[in-house]
């Protein structure tokens, strides 16, 4: 069976997210403007090395961008790509990118795969 995701997210980094996200409208309301600014970064090439070197603010901006990147309309299906909760996304990258072998993992690929299984993981 799928493992159960903790209901309450803990840890320093996530606390930082929470405060930043809340400051920008909370997790139910995607961070706007002040977090990441206009989308201009190479989201299809950003990888775990970039994540590890980024500030929390940069990470939050990237998560916002990923939400749009992955959550677009799925042509012909009438649906949209499923997205992760921002806190889950942050923790996903923290857990994965801490490993040396993951240094080249593309963030959008990690995100989209995790999003596809988010329902399972969250059960």
């Amino acid at each position: 069976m799928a493992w159960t995701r903790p209901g309450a997210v803990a840890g320093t980094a996530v606390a930082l997210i929470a405060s930043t996200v809340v400051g920008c409208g909370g997790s139910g309301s995607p961070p706007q403007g002040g977090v990441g600014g206009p989308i201009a970064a190479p989201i299809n090439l950003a990888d775990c090395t970039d994540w590890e070197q980024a500030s929390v603010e940069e990470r939050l901006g990237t998560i916002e961008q990923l939400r749009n990147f992955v959550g677009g309309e799925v042509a012909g299906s009438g649906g949209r790509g499923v997205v992760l909760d921002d806190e889950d996304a942050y923790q996903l990258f923290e857990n994965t990118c801490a490993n040396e072998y993951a240094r080249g993992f593309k963030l959008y690929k990690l995100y989209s795969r995790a999003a596809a299984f988010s329902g399972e993981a969250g059960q």
Partner: protein
Amino acid sequence: MLISGSAALAHIERASYWPDPAAESVGGQPAGGDVPDARSLFSALDESAPGQTRVVCVGGQPLAYRPDQEVHKREDQQVSHEEVDRLKKKVKKLRHAVKHASGEEKDRLRHKLHIAKKRLGQAKQDYQAALAAEMAARQAAQQAYEQALAEELAARAAYNEALAAQPSMQVLDSSIADALAHGYELQPSKPRVQVSYQEARRLRDFNARLLAECHYDSIQAAVNDSHNNDRVVVMPGTYTEPDSRAAPTDDPACDGLEEMNDRGQTGANSYRYVATCPNDQNLIAIVGREPGPDPPPQPPLDDRHKIPDEGPCIRCNLQLEGSGISPDDVIVDVGNVDSGNGAPADPAKDVGIRVDRADGFVLRNMTVRHAAEHGIYVVEVDGYRLEQFKTAYNEEYGVLTFTADHGLIQDCDAFGSGDSAIYPGSAPDTGEQVEAPDVQRYNTEIRRCDMHHSAAGYSGTDANAVWIHHNDFYDNALGFTTDVFTAAGHPGFPQDSDLIEDNDFYSNNFNPYVDQPDDTEIVPTIPVPVGTGLWIAGGNNNTLRDNRFWDNWRRGTMLFAVPDEFVCGPDTGNSQHGCDPTEVNTSYDNEYYGNVMGQAPGGTPDPNGTDFWWDQFPGNTGNCWHDNVGKNGDRASLTSDPPLSPIAGTSPPGFLPEDCDSPTNTGGGGDNDAELVSCLANFGEGAPTPCSWFTTPPEPQP
């Protein structure tokens, strides 16, 4: 502020559409509608053929072709002695007659004898004169011949010296010498290709003819000057395209030509952007059409059939080919030349060769390496043929085709990619989801290729109706993946209707997640399970038959559903119409039969960790594994998770289904999805099951 560590090479792809699959006439030739034929190299200089040929060589300077000239020697002339002989006989006869004659008759004969003697004397003089003249002529002819021969040999030597010193010919000569001695390697899994002396001689001579027509040292420059039905022939050498490398990335000249992509992002480069700034991202860009008069729809259309902003063909039916003896002779290098066909790539551009809306495109006989993303990138093209080529150490994909139709990829060697060696992304919906007036058909064929030493050999996200056969997948972490990941950017969801047959999947135990030698290192960009032959990660109605899987230490094959592919959001008035996730779920109706598992070609048992693995996702139906054999050549030696049914040909719950249509052939859950979640959805703290994918499994014993 956003993460931008790799920003220098970045770009975001535009929303892409499947081209109209019907052929159109371009200069009297059909473009699209089918896989284009390849024109023979030896017809490249045939002026009666359609199109014009442009020749590229190292140095870009022509050398006039000089065929060997024959030097003719004067034939000896025979000097006739017949007249002398005849007169001698006559004199002799007259003498005899005089001796036996008398009277007036004797006087008459004496007179005749006198005349005959006189004639004989003259004849002797004439003969001597003719003989002297002939001897003189012979002497003069010999001197002339020797002089002409010397001149010809000198001219021939000078030409051959110039030819041999020409850089492209030097590469060719070296390659020919090696090929004659040892053959050349096209696919490492196959015997070397042998070359005859006659073939080599003919190819060298034709290259000498091509050299006479060489006016380019840049492939891009030759492409830029090309039109519909034209050809670009590239002579042996390494092409780094300095002008393309110097072209700015994110060129301010193309500001304002971005568009909104699938994800609602502005900033994706439009087709007009690519046409205007072709080397912004690409070392070589083949822009096949004029941009349409109207801008692309914003946001993109939900229906991705037919390109909405397509202009007329300007470079359709273009053939780009190397003129060497093998793909190793013509190299398009996007990065570090000194790395050879290895690492590090050190790329200067994202893409090696981009083929954009260039219907009827043919690429042959070259190597493309060291791109930051894709070596060869074919997008929105109807009709393409890629053959006799190699891609090496392109950091994302060796070959990426995207929303391209009527494609053939064959006789190739693709390796060293962080994602996959060959990736026919979003191949058109010509499988079970085909829409009239189109008919169900395989739109892309991939055959006789080696895909190896990459995170994945083959990947096909939302790649529909692809026919993959007679290929070798080895030395990857995962030999083959078809999936629905990143579905938002890929039209064609859900993936379906591949035919995967007569392939070999073996020794996919390469672990890119540990330290590797510098010169063969790849940096994986995806998480996949080391030691796996093939997986279907969300896909329907795929057929795997008559393949052989052996020596994959984790698993031969995996099949699992991707449960939350998309969500039905608020109706935007554009694309939410009809959204019903229950109707488009994955994975259903995948059939595996006639496969040999855990046995090497000679019949020696060489097992996979587990032959067949299935997640048993609740509600999935129609998946079946039947008439396959295991390491001992029988059903009993198959290994699977869930286990084989106690009775062959049945599908009881909790076992691997063998009866495709049984009402009990339904996924019932189980705990196999825990592995997927721990490896793919690793968020939250304290995940109880660490991901095992990045550790090489122990080799299973026969």
